[in-house]
């Protein structure tokens, strides 16, 4: 259990009548990148707020570094670098003031690193936050999250609304954090190419439920898209056990299949079909199929 930086078991949460999270169980191992995928409103930010102790667990429990973030906020938050989705840093402050303000709270703050990041991100410390562009604000928030070299980096939609240049900065920062020993990154995104690049492990959150929680490499081995050619022509797709999605007409039907390759071949031969093509399957497709399946 101590191997898990974040350990969530059967977490449930409702806001009034809406069930934001239902029976969510998740474990983030130490020293990796965990990608949380979900469409807007799926519950990603709510889940992250539970990790930060901003919400208490109505059902189930949450442990971060083995501690309850609601009961011990200082111990938990002191080891987390957090970048919120709305990046709501006070707009009247100057960047320099904000850095001075924030570093007071973190004993492990590395001022040299902060200065280095300021120049790498090309920020002018005298500028007021309200005069910054969206991308610059994102860079400031990232700087604040990274400068105390946290054990756990939590990024809520870090690239939302940003241009590709800033996105590179953020993704590069995530890569750099991972290459430092023992540090963990949890980031939520609905941009799947980023998740594919960076994540070791991926979880899909949809309408408050976890649809999938696997290592990325295992995912590729578990999903296949094949075109099967059947003896007989039919107007509807012949039922293939384990398929998430089917498409085509007549003799040839393309399936997205969840399972091992061997199982797929066995199932298809049972139906007297031959595999005529194997098509590439992106994380995007897998995500959509999982969602549609529910």
């Amino acid at each position, binding site marked *: 259990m101590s191997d898990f930086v974040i350990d969530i078991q059967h977490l449930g949460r409702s806001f009034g009548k809406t069930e934001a999270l239902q029976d969510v169980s998740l474990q983030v191992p130490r020293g990796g990148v965990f990608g949380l995928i979900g469409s807007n409103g799926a519950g990603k930010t709510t889940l992250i707020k539970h990790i930060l102790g*901003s919400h208490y667990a109505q059902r189930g429990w949450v442990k971060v570094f083995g501690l309850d973030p609601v009961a011990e*906020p200082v111990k938990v938050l002191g080891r987390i670098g*957090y970048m*919120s989705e709305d990046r709501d840093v*006070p707009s009247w402050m100057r960047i320099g*003031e904000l850095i*001075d303000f924030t570093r*007071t709270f973190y004993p492990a703050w590395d001022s040299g690193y902060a200065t280095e990041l300021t120049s790498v991100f090309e920020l002018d410390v*005298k500028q007021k936050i309200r005069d910054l562009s969206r991308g610059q604000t994102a860079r400031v*928030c990232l700087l604040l999250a990274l400068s105390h070299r946290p054990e756990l980096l939590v990024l809520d939609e870090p690239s939302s609304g940003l241009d590709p240049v800033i996105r590179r900065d953020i993704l590069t920062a995530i890569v750099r954090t991972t290459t430092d020993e023992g540090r963990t990154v949890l980031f939520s995104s609905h941009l799947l190419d980023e998740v594919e690049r960076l994540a070791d492990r991926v979880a899909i959150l949809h309408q408050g439920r976890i649809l999938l929680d696997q290592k990325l490499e295992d995912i590729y081995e578990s999903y296949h898209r094949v075109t099967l050619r059947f003896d007989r022509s039919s107007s509807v797709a012949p039922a293939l056990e384990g398929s998430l999605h089917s498409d085509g007409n007549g003799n040839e039907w393309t399936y997205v299949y969840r399972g091992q390759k061997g199982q797929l071949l066995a199932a298809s031969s049972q139906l007297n079909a031959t595999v005529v093509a194997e098509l590439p399957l992106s994380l995007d497709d897998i995500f959509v199929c999982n969602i549609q399946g529910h």
Partner: protein
Amino acid sequence: MMHSIIAALTWEYVARNRWMLLWLPLLANIPALCILLPLKSISPDDSFMTSPLLIGIQVSVLLSLVLVVCFGIISTQGSSRRLYRFPISTIQITSYYFWTGALLVGAQVALVLWLWKVLLPIDWPIASPVVFSIVCWCALQPVVRGQSQSLWWIVLAILIVIALSFWLLIRHGVPFQQGGMLTSQVHYWNVISITDWLITFFSLGLAYWLTAIRVTYDRSGRSNMPLLERIQLALERLEARWFSGSWNFRSPIQAYSWYDLRHRLLTIPILVFLGVLVSWVIAGLTAVIKRDPGTLISLAIGGTYLSTVLQVYMALLFGALSLFGKYLVRFEAPEHKLKKSDATPFEHGSFFNGLPISFKDKATALVASSAMATVICGAVLLLSYALIGMVAWAFGVCLSNVKFLNHWKYLVSMNVLAMVLTFVLNNLKFSIGPMLWRIDHWFWSIILAAILVAFGQPAGICVSAAFCVFVLVALTASTIQSLMKADIRLGTALGIWGIGTCLAILGWYLFRDEFGPVGMLLLAALAGLSMLPFFSTTESIRRAHTS
């Protein structure tokens, strides 16, 4: 359906601001009623009604009312920038906001004053305040209807305020000599003279013209005239250089306290400072015109006193907003939702919730910043009084002739009271906020009030007794809770209770002749309220942090 632009804009305004339009008249009423109702029970005879003191109160309350109403209308109307992209002419945009605003301001002021006339045995004029408030609204439009934050517009605003204040005071018969507001020559502004109408029409016209210019500039993207822009840039660069030093906060408490002060609380000291400044300018100008240093002193005293009232009133306004603000924000149009940390100054967004600071430290920081804001206000007022003293000594004016300074007791105690009130109001959200919604705290108050009513006690005593009990119950409950959760040490708790009780007893002793039972009860409640933040803030923070 929308046959005209006016209909469309009006519909949008009402639809967007349904709840605000409901709350705003209430908000405008409550503070004034808080001041007026107790007065009624203190001194019920008629001579009081025409006394200079009551006229002075009328002026202050009127100014506060105008302030609240104008502020409310401006914030509900929102920025005119939204309309720029529509095919409406600039004149139409200007006219809509200008004239409908004026109408709403006049209507609201009339309504509130009429309500007071009905509820209280106070015979205050309605027509002149309505005219005055409309002029105030219009005069401030050129300053408000623009995006650029320029120092020059602020200077203009101050000049406008000075001019309006002069007008108000002159029409109340303030003789600008020794005694100032508290002489028997002061009277109500009962008649709107020809001069008044001339002033009104002239300022309305001028204001409309200036507003149209401002909106035109704004719409076309031009902010200032180039010369002013260069001066402004130079000032900004100076400011940047002045503040270039980096802050070295010694502890999270200090850092958070600094943030809270600058973010939430600095408005009040700034307003107090401006109030005192404006008073001194008016006083100085009048003294120069009349060549009488006595005028300077009396006007300065009056102005400082008014600033104190302004301080308390603003603290009350912000305190009330902090309690009820989130209900108002919820019904704003989405485009008004600014960055969450700015939308309501009293909520803290995700960034601050992510900072590793313990609830206890955060609570200490917030109470400290409230105290600091109060101290700054007090220092400014003290400086003003000290300056008055120096001027009096320099010009050989005898202060004991000046009314209101006869009794040092009143001067000192009034200011102390104002400071304590400000401190309490600054902390309103965290101290009394969570208590307000707890029925078990109100339970005992209601029982007591019922008993008192059954015994035929007057309304004032019932209400103040109930309130006093409520505060006592809340205080006891939060003391016990904070001790149980180890938010505070036993020694500190006892110390605070001790000091609070001593202060209450001191107040009772000093004012045993002046205050009736209502006053005593309210004083006790105030002492309780000033102790409350020390016990309840940590738990409030804890609840606010985790939902």
